[in-house]
């Protein structure tokens, strides 16, 4: 385990140094990642010029939702989203090399496709989260203080699990990756807004079946004591770590099944 992590660190370091050779391109990408995340915020800010609240949530409350969702998504994007390149390596017949090396496949892909520029997504998210939390008038009880980091970590794991599962599907249906993006990118977009503004089928699929409601909405209702038309009970605020654990186990099982089922496209 320790040696795996050491190998992972060395591989990631090599990737960062190699990206750094193309500095202009690196900064262009970094800025565009930052801008894409900031644009979602701009949309929220523009909307609140027109309305005083959205689904009964104030600007500060929606901004907290945006901050947690986007931060969790950004960290998942940084560390895990590389697995979606599996589809490409399968098509090109280069996936076999991952199976030959003595490091778990997910770690190998994550390391060999690591791109530091993706951190651009997390920067505005973290900044907004801090500002929004400090102006949302949160009643900082000890359980709420503990809730915040747990929520962000759980959310990262949940998004990571969604990425792994959707990427594993491309082992069976090469090309399904584009549909998978609907759930990752679509999910992170959807959950910047309170879940209850969506119709029932959207809530069911993007909230509960793919358990992204636990990334931000469920804990945030309690954290901010916000309008709660779906009647989420208070105790559910502590469920995200368990949901994250369960998602990770499911992702692990699906990925393992995919690897067992894998047949190379080369011959």
């Amino acid at each position: 385990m320790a040696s795996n992590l050491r190998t992972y660190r060395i591989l990631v370091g090599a990737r960062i140094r190699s990206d750094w050779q193309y500095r202009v391109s690196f900064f262009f990408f970094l800025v565009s990642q930052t801008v894409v995340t900031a644009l979602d915020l701009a949309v929220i800010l523009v909307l609140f010029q027109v309305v005083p609240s959205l689904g009964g949530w104030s600007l500060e409350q929606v901004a907290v939702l945006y901050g947690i969702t986007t931060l969790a998504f950004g960290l998942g994007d940084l560390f895990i989203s590389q697995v979606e390149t599996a589809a490409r390596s399968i098509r090109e017949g280069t996936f076999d090399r991952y199976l030959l090396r003595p490091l778990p496949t997910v770690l190998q892909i994550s390391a060999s496709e690591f791109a530091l520029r993706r951190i651009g997504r997390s920067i505005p998210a973290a900044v907004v989260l801090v500002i929004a939390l400090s102006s949302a008038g949160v009643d900082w009880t000890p359980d709420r203080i503990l809730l915040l980091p747990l929520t962000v970590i759980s959310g990262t794991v949940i998004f990571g699990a969604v990425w792994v599962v959707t990427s594993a599907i491309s082992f069976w249906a090469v090309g399904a990756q584009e549909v998978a993006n609907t759930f990752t990118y679509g999910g992170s977009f959807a959950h910047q807004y309170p879940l209850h503004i969506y119709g029932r089928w959207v809530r069911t699929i993007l909230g509960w079946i793919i358990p992204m409601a636990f990334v931000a909405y469920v804990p945030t209702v309690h954290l901010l004591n916000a309008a709660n038309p779906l009647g989420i009970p208070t105790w559910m605020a502590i469920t995200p770590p368990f949901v994250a654990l369960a998602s990770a186990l499911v992702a692990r099982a699906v990925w393992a099944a995919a690897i067992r089922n894998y047949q190379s496209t080369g011959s």
Partner: protein
Amino acid sequence: MRLWFEVARRSFRRWSTYRLATVAGVITNTVFGYLRAYILIAVAAASTNDLAGWDQTDLVTFAFITQALLAGTGAFGEPELAERVRSGDVVVDLYRPADMQLWWLAAWWGRATYSLLARGLPPVLLGAVAFDLALPPDAASWVAFAISLVLASTIGFGIRFCSNLTAFWLVDNRGLDQLVTLVLTFFGGLLLPVVLFPSWLEAIAWALPFAAMIQLPAEIFMGVYDGPIIGALALQLAWVVILFGLGRLMLTTATRRVVIQGG
């Protein structure tokens, strides 16, 4: 004339072979259409002002029709030309006995037509399953929308032709291309109707070509364009001319001064 038609027709057929990508595109565009529709419904419910005279039906229609326009105008770009510049294959395009810019325009129209029908139309129909949508009020509006759509797609081409040609100077222009997409997405109205922008932001949006590509045709479709339609079409035509001229300028400068890779 025959040549351009054939180029467009083959481009149409080429893109129509990516069937799985088409299905994926329909699913993505539909899901995002629904998400935006629900957000805009929540806006309509909470709004204290008159939202530029748009009612809930207009806002929901906007959410879906812009998904169709996104497909039909190639709003997310097509990097093939830039890749050919990078690889040096562009030299083949340059010594064809046909104008290179018009060649790529014909190919763009072929792709855009396919994309509009296969990826753009289904999300609107699937949106109509759950919501009432606003349609052009009369035949003249349909005609105006069709003209506006062709002009919008040509603006889309003009933007990407320039953006792709920057690869002659930057080599790796993907970062820039992505930034163009982001600015286009926001100021075109793909995230929010431009009419909801505060007035200073709306002024910026109308000073850029992107609103003429997405927001304008959407307004014409819904019959909410404020002013004579001919003025809207003239604005679009002006952007077509400007972008086409800019593309032509970049192309001649590039071919005169730049060394093709691998030559």
